[in-house]
C-alpha cells in the first residue's frame, strides 16, 4: 500500500506545484450533494484496507479508500459497530468520504456524531505533506485536535488517508415502539425521554407517529418497554436503516430536501413541507420549494442551521453566511492547510 499512498502524495504535490485544483473522490456516493468544481480528480479508492483492528481496544484504523460496507462487515463480525450510524448514500461509499462529510445517522443523539468517534487521522495537506494527528488511543490531548477538525471539512483541509475511530459494542437487543401523537406532544415526549435514564437509542416522528428504538441488555429494554407502553413495530430495524439512508418512502420527493439541525426543544418550525423529525427533535427534515434564505432563517431562529441535501446544485453543502470574524478564521485555516487552495475548492461553503 506504500506505493498507493505515495501516488496520492505525488499527485497532490504535482497539483500544488502547478496550482491545479483537485476534486477529491472516494466512492462518489455523495456527489449528488457535494461536489467540488475542479478539472482533475484525485481518486482515493486505491488506498484501502485495514491498518489495525483489535476488538478489545475498541479502535479501528483503516485507509480512507476502504468501502464503508467492508468496515461495517468487519466490525459486525466482532459484534461491534460504528455507533454514529453514518448514511452510505450508495454501495460504494468509502470511510474517508464518510468522515470528510461528517454525517451521522439515527443514533446520533444518543451515541454521538462522526467527529465524536474520530481518534486520529493521517492526511496529506495542500503542500503534499504526509501528516498524522491524534492517534489510536481514547484520550489524547497532545497538540491541537486537528483530527476531529477533518470531520465535516469536506476534504478542504487535507486528503484524509487513514482514520482511527473508536468503535462500540453492538447492543445485544433492540426493540422499536410506536405511538400515535401530534407533533408538539411528540417533540415534548422526545425531550422528556432525553432527560430520563432510558435506553432510547433513536427517535423519529413522521405522519402522526412517534417511534423510539430501545437498545441494550434485553432485561433493561424490556423494563423500559413496560414503563413506556406503545405498540411494538415489527420491522423496526428496516425503518431505522431507511431513515439512515433517507430511502424511506417519505423522502422520495421531487422537492428540494432540507436537513435542519436545530435545538431539540424548538417548537414545530411552522414551515410547510415538514417531513420528519429525528434525533430527539434536533434534526428536522423538510421537503419544500421555500427560498433558501427562508429555510435558513427558520433553522437559525430555532438555534441551528440548514443544509440542502437534495435538489440543489451540488457545489457545496450550502449553509447560511458565517459571521465575518468566523469567516476570516475559516479563510485563514484553509490557507494554513492548503495555501494554494487546490483541495476541493469551494468547499465547505462560502467564507
Amino acid at each position, binding site marked *: 500500500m506504500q506505493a498507493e499512498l505515495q501516488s496520492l502524495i505525488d499527485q497532490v504535490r504535482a497539483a500544488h506545484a502547478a496550482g491545479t485544483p483537485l476534486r477529491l473522490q472516494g466512492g462518489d456516493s455523495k456527489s449528488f450533494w457535494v461536489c467540488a468544481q475542479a478539472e482533475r480528480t484525485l481518486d482515493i479508492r486505491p488506498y484501502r484496507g485495514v491498518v489495525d483492528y*483489535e476488538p*478489545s481496544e*475498541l479502535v479501528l484504523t483503516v485507509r480512507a479508500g476502504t468501502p464503508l460496507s467492508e468496515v461495517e462487515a468487519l466490525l459486525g463480525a466482532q459484534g461491534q459497530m460504528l455507533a454514529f450510524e453514518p448514511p452510505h448514500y450508495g454501495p460504494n461509499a468509502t470511510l474517508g468520504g464518510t468522515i470528510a462529510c*461528517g454525517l*451521522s445517522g439515527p443514533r*446520533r443523539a444518543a451515541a*454521538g*456524531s462522526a*467527529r*465524536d468517534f474520530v481518534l486520529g487521522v493521517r492526511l496529506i*495537506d495542500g503542500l503534499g*505533506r504526509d*501528516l*498524522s494527528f491524534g*492517534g*489510536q*488511543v*481514547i*484520550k489524547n*490531548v*497532545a*497538540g*491541537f*485536535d*486537528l483530527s*476531529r*477538525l477533518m470531520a*465535516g*471539512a469536506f476534504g478542504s483541509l487535507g486528503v484524509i488517508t*487513514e482514520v*482511527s475511530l473508536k468503535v*462500540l*459494542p453492538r447492543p445485544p437487543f433492540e426493540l422499536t415502539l410506536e405511538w400515535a401523537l401530534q407533533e408538539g406532544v411528540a417533540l415534548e415526549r422526545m*425531550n422528556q425521554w432525553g*432527560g430520563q*435514564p*432510558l435506553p432510547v437509542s433513536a427517535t423519529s416522528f413522521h405522519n402522526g407517529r412517534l417511534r423510539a428504538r430501545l437498545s*441494550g*441488555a434485553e*432485561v*433493561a429494554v*424490556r*423494563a423500559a418497554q413496560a414503563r413506556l407502553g406503545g405498540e411494538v413495530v415489527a420491522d423496526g430495524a428496516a425503518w431505522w436503516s431507511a431513515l439512515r439512508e433517507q430511502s424511506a418512502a417519505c423522502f422520495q420527493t421531487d422537492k428540494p430536501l432540507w436537513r435542519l*439541525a436545530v*435545538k431539540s*426543544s424548538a417548537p414545530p418550525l411552522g414551515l410547510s413541507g415538514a417531513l420528519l423529525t429525528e434525533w430527539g427533535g*434536533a434534526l428536522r427534515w423538510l421537503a419544500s420549494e421555500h427560498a433558501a434564505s427562508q429555510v435558513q432563517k427558520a433553522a437559525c431562529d*430555532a438555534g441551528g*442551521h440548514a*443544509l440542502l441535501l437534495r435538489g440543489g446544485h451540488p457545489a457545496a453543502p450550502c449553509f447560511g453566511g*458565517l*459571521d465575518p*470574524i*468566523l469567516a476570516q*478564521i475559516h479563510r*485563514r*485555516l484553509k490557507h*494554513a492547510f492548503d495555501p494554494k487552495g487546490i483541495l476541493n475548492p469551494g468547499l*465547505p*461553503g462560502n467564507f
Partner: protein
Amino acid sequence: MTAPISQAQIASALSRWLAPGSVLTNPEDVRPFETDGLSAYRQLPYVVVLPRTEAEVQAVLRYCHEAHIPVVARGSGTGLSGGALPHKDGVLLSLSRFMRILEIDPQARVARVQPGVRNLAISEAVAPYGLYYAPDPSSQIACSIGGNVAENSGGVHCLKYGLTVHNLVKVRAVTMAGEVVELGSDGLDAAGYDLMALITGSEGLLAVVTEVTVKLLPKPQTAKAILAAFDDVEKAGNAVANIIAAGIIPAGLEMMDGPATRAAEAFVHADYPLSAEAVLLCESDGTPEEVSDEMARMQALLESSGAIEIRYSQDEAQRLKFWAGRKAAFPAVGRLSPDYYCIDGTIPRRSLGSVLKRIYELGREYGLEVANVFHAGDGNLHPLILFDAAKPGEFERTEAFAGKILELCVEVGGTITGEHGVGVEKINQMCVQFTPDELSLFHAVKAAFDPEGLLNPGKAVPTLHRCAEMGRMHVHHNELPHPELPRF
C-alpha cells in the same frame, strides 16, 4: 520589539476599562498567580487582571493586542502541565470572577455558564432536575469549566460518557484581537469547520473562553461497584482488556497498583486488600436491570482473569467507600514523600501490564519509587514518581525518568498526554510525538486565530528550533527507540 512598557503604564491603561480593584501589580497581590497545579514551575506575572464581563475581556485583549503584550488566561489554576504559568512580561487574565450559571434549560438538557464556574457546581445546580454534567476530573471541586474546555479534561466516567469535547454544545470566546466568536450551535452540529472541537484542548492558545454551554445527562437510577484484587499487575491489565473485549463499557474502570493501594489504605481506611499487587474498581450504572446484568458479567470476567478477591458494594455507602481510596490516592501518595510528580501518558489497553512492569524497572534504574493510580479503561496512565525536591539533582532525575515514561508511551502506540495537556511541562516530548511538518501546521493553525502569537506564547507547541536541539540530544544518546516506525 519596541521598548518594554512599564507595569504602571499597563496598569493605568487597563484601569480605564476595568472596575477598581481589578488590576493587580503588587508582588504580594500577584504572588498567588505565580504557579498552577504544577508548582515546580513558577513565574510572577507582570500584571494580573480580574475582569467581570466579556466586554472587559475584550477591552483587555484589544489593548494587549495593540500594545503587543502577551496574555495568559487562567481558570482555577489546577492545571498539571504549567498551562497557566504566567508570562514574565505579560498580563495574566484570570476568569475567576466569571462565576455565574446563566441559564439552565432542563427540557433541552443544557446549561449555559460562565467560564469560572467550577465543574462540580454545574452538576450541583442541575441536580434538582435529575441531571448532571458527566466529565468529572478528580479536581472537580476546584477546576473551572473554562479550564476544562482548554484542556479537554477527562475523568473517571469518561470511558462511558466521553471527554469534555463530547459534552459541549456551544462555546463563546474572545480572540486576541478582542473579537467575540460563537462556536457550536444549539443543534447537534454546526455549519462550517468544527472550531468548537478545535478550541477544546487548545490550552488557551487560540482564544479566551467567556461562556460555555454544556450538555447535561440524566442521572443514572443506580450505580454499583466491584473491587477486585490481583496478585499481579499484568493479570489486572488483562482483566481490563477482557471486560472491554466482552462488549462491556463500564461507567468507571480504574486501577491502583500495590504501592498506591497501600498508601490509600493508610490514609482513608477504605478496607483495601493490602497484599494485592493491583486493585481494579469497576462501576456499573443505569437501570437496576442493566446494572445487575452487567455486574454478573463483569464478575465472571474478573474471576476468569485471575482475581484473587472480589467484593461488591452492598449499598451506596460501601460504593462511596470503594471510591474514597481512589479519590484520595494522590494526596495519599503525597504523604509518602515530600514531593511527587504526576505523569499522564495514554497507551493501548493491551500494553497496560507490560508498560507498568517497564515503569517499575525504570524506577529501579533511576532509584525512584513510583505508584500508579489511573484510568485503566481509557489506557490513561498516571504514574506518580516520589521524590524529594530538597535533595540536589533529584528533581532533574525525576524529570528524566518522566520523560522516559512518556517516550515509552509513544513507543507502544500511545501519547504523551491523555488529559493534562502539554503546557510547558511536556513541550520537549512534543518533538518526539510530532514531526517538524506537523508542528509547523500547529503553528499555522495558531496563527489563524492569533497571527501575532500573543496568547499563551511558548506553551503546548514547541518551536522547530527547540526540537532541532532536542533532536540532536536524542541522536547523541541514541535513546529513541524505533525512530523508523510511523507514530500514527
